[in-house]
């Protein structure tokens, strides 16, 4: 007679699956409820004071802009067709730059997050370089690369008759150059946090790597992509240095709002403030709208 008394305690209880709680796996045992705030304990002053200072530091300049805005002459300032031309160009170019960033930036982020290749660390560092590069230098670099005489640009000109500086396409490229790293970093981070085993699961179901990326990974990291896209869009909308350096400044073609603001600042600060308010209002409206619609988790 033998007994089965030796069975160890329920292994499920002893060794929960290592990834059981990740990524909304249905078996996640810990409910994701917010930890209730401990009653009777305030926010420590050492955190509160700098936090409020930080908030004020960000908000006071914006407030000052509102307080000193030439409200009386505002309608007149804003009815000029140039303003709307610049605004429309800004929105079109920022959106196009975001789209371009998505098309080439998301695959780049995937490459950085999901594949191993020599020098990947270096590549990642290079991708983030435009973040630290002064945008004006970025503009010069773009001229040296894609200008009429540039390393690549001379061939574009010679073979296809394409010259990018001083064109709207040039604005889009300049904005993409500056804004795409935000998207890549954001998406790469989300991809790293996402469980790669979902891709394995897809593979065992017959999905090629591309299908797995498109049908599984992409939807899983959609919030991160949305956040990255919004960051990139906002950055592109405010882009000045690289744009004016690479694409120049011509109303209706390459003069975006930041350029219009800067030039107005030279001899008509009131007009500059008025233009800035328009840009602010539009970006706040767009970002708030997006946040409500599909960025709840961000």
């Amino acid at each position: 007679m033998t007994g089965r008394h030796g069975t160890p305690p329920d292994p499920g209880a002893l060794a929960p699956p290592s990834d059981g709680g990740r990524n909304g796996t249905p078996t996640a045992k810990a409910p994701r409820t917010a930890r209730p705030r401990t009653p009777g304990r305030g926010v420590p002053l050492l955190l509160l004071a700098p936090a409020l200072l930080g908030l004020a530091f960000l908000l006071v300049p914006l407030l000052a802009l509102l307080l000193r805005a030439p409200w009386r002459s505002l309608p007149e300032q804003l009815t000029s067709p140039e303003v709307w031309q610049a605004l429309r160009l800004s929105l079109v170019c920022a959106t196009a730059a975001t789209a371009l960033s998505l098309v080439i930036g998301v695959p780049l982020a995937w490459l950085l997050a999901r594949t191993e290749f020599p020098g990947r660390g270096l590549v990642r560092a290079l991708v983030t370089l435009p973040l630290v590069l002064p945008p004006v230098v970025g503009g010069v670099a773009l001229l040296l690369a894609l200008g009429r005489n540039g390393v690549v640009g001379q061939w574009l000109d010679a073979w296809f008759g394409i010259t990018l500086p001083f064109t709207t396409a040039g604005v889009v490229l300049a904005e993409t150059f500056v804004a795409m790293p935000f998207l890549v970093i954001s998406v790469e981070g989300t991809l790293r946090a996402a469980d790669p085993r979902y891709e394995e699961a897809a593979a065992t179901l017959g999905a090629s790597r591309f299908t797995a990326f498109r049908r599984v990974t992409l939807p899983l990291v959609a919030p991160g992509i949305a956040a990255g896209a919004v960051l990139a869009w906002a950055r592109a909308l405010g882009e000045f240095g690289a744009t004016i350096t690479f694409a120049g400044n011509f109303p209706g073609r390459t003069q975006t709002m930041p350029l219009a603001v800067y030039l107005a600042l030279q001899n008509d600060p009131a007009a500059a403030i008025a233009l800035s308010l328009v840009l602010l209002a539009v970006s706040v409206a767009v970002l708030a709208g997006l946040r409500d619609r599909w960025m709840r988790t961000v």
Partner: protein
Amino acid sequence: MTRSAHRPRRRLRTAGAAAAVLLALGGCSASGADTSGSVGDGPSGTVTVFAAASLEEGFTTLGERFEKEHPGTTVTFSFGGSDTLAAGISGGAPADVFAAASTRTMKTVTDEGLTAGSPSTFVRNRLEIATLPGNPRGIGSLRDLAAPGLKVVLCDRTVPCGAAAHTALTAAGVDLTPVSYEQDVKSALTKVALKEADAAVVYRTDVRAAGDRVEGVEFPESAEAVNDYPIALLENAPNPTAAKAFVALVESPEGRKVLTGAGFLAP
């Protein structure tokens, strides 16, 4: 942009001056204890000069001479767009001397009562066409700039070189559509230096400063748009003695010689 006469040696001090400007703009009052010269003596201490970007080469040379002539003095420059500098002065930046690239800009400072005495014109500048080295497109006049296929950049009309170019073009009766209205004269020049544009209408001094990267073409209509460069002592100068001495050097025959060497015209 802030530069000092002895660039490598003065980095820190320059940074300090820049910080002082920022502080002053923020509304804090900077007490210039270490910057004021002792009254009655010869010039000493630091003299802070806000000067139009186009004056950079000439003024840097003059700053070095000034320090040599008056041991114990330091000249700190802040070069930039005249309007930006004027805004800084209006905001309370602790500058001693302001040298602007246009009388209109100087007037905004004078109107606020921020200059000591009336400004005087110390040099003038006129326009030239900057072309690629060797002038491959054979540009000889303003009219040539309107040739089809030619990429021309102008300064934006909101900045002095743009306003001057507009005056000259109007005088010449030339209707010109550039590829870009650049935010300042250096950007316009850079576009030609990088061969992205075929020509730009800029100041003579800028063509000179660019060396052999561009070639200058004079044109008669530039006489219609000559820029006067006024210089003034500032009302709230922390170091008026040294400031006065620096203005004197700029206006002296020696100063004029340095500046004309950089392409400026005598007033």
